[in-house]
């Protein structure tokens, strides 16, 4: 059975993803943008599987959900590492 709060969170994720797509050009100056976006997309996919698991193949989609979360956190960790390594470079002071 689909839980309403999970569905709402998934819709909010889709909304944020839509915002990213329409503002992709403006976001290009965000360093390592692709890694950051992959992380968010995987996070959204995790929520998609959370919703789907309420309908069919609960265990399988639950596993997919958590695999998406770990992939998302790995990407986020890589993104922050890249930032940390290049700390102090002018290229990252772009939005100040």
């Amino acid at each position: 059975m689909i839980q309403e709060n999970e569905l709402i969170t998934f819709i909010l994720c889709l909304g944020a993803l839509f915002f990213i797509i329409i503002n992709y050009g403006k976001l290009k100056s965000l360093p390592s943008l692709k890694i950051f976006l992959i992380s968010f997309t995987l996070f959204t996919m995790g929520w998609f599987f959370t919703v789907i698991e309420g309908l069919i193949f609960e265990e399988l989609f639950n596993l997919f959900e958590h695999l998406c979360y770990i992939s998302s956190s790995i990407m986020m960790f890589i993104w922050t590492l890249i930032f940390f390594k290049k700390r102090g470079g002018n290229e990252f002071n772009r939005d100040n």
Partner: protein
Amino acid sequence: MNLIGIIDFFVFTLTLLSLSIILIGWKNQFSIITKLSLIAMMFIISFYYLSNFLEWSGISDVLVNVEDYIASLAPLAWFFFLYTFIQKKSEKNLRENQKDIEEAYRYTEFYKDLFTHDIRNILQNILLANNIIEQSYHNQQKLENLPEIYELIKEQIIRGENLISNVTKLSEIRKSPFPIHTIDLKSILEKTVEKVKKLYEHRNIIIQFPEQTLLLKSNDLLNNVFENILVNAIIHNKNEPH
């Protein structure tokens, strides 16, 4: 601990590490509001992953009740982080555009002043020459001065041409600076003197400069500097050569 619990442990650990890097390592990377929204986003996600880990590893269900409400803030936090980033970027671009517009306005004012002053002076000289020519039709004695008057008009036209050329060069310098390279000063001076003598062939001009070769680093506009100095010297110098 089951597989999901182990996965969630790593998810939570990695997210905590990312959050730590953001808190410790990042200085001056973003504006304060962007950084705060990113930290808030990471806190919310960390909380959600912690709750998942506690639930799936069978440690505790204490966070489950609030988990979904907190989790629904996560996409909003992502959105807010990206929105503030875009907003700050747009503000920066706007400031830069304003600076460019102000600079362009200053240059326009400068060109306007330059043109107004010099063109007015040139036109006044031509008008004066024209008046003298008109008067000379009624006064035969003044006809003797006609070659000088024509020369004056010719000089003013050359001044006008030089003014247009200089303004064009100024504009080009602003757009893309001329490259610096090694130049032989003597050859530049020779060419400039030759050009100036041709422009003022009716004047008795004697220009002396050192004969030895002098190499210096400059751009292709150096000859204009010498040309301007020499032309001004000719225009404003009323002395006869010794």
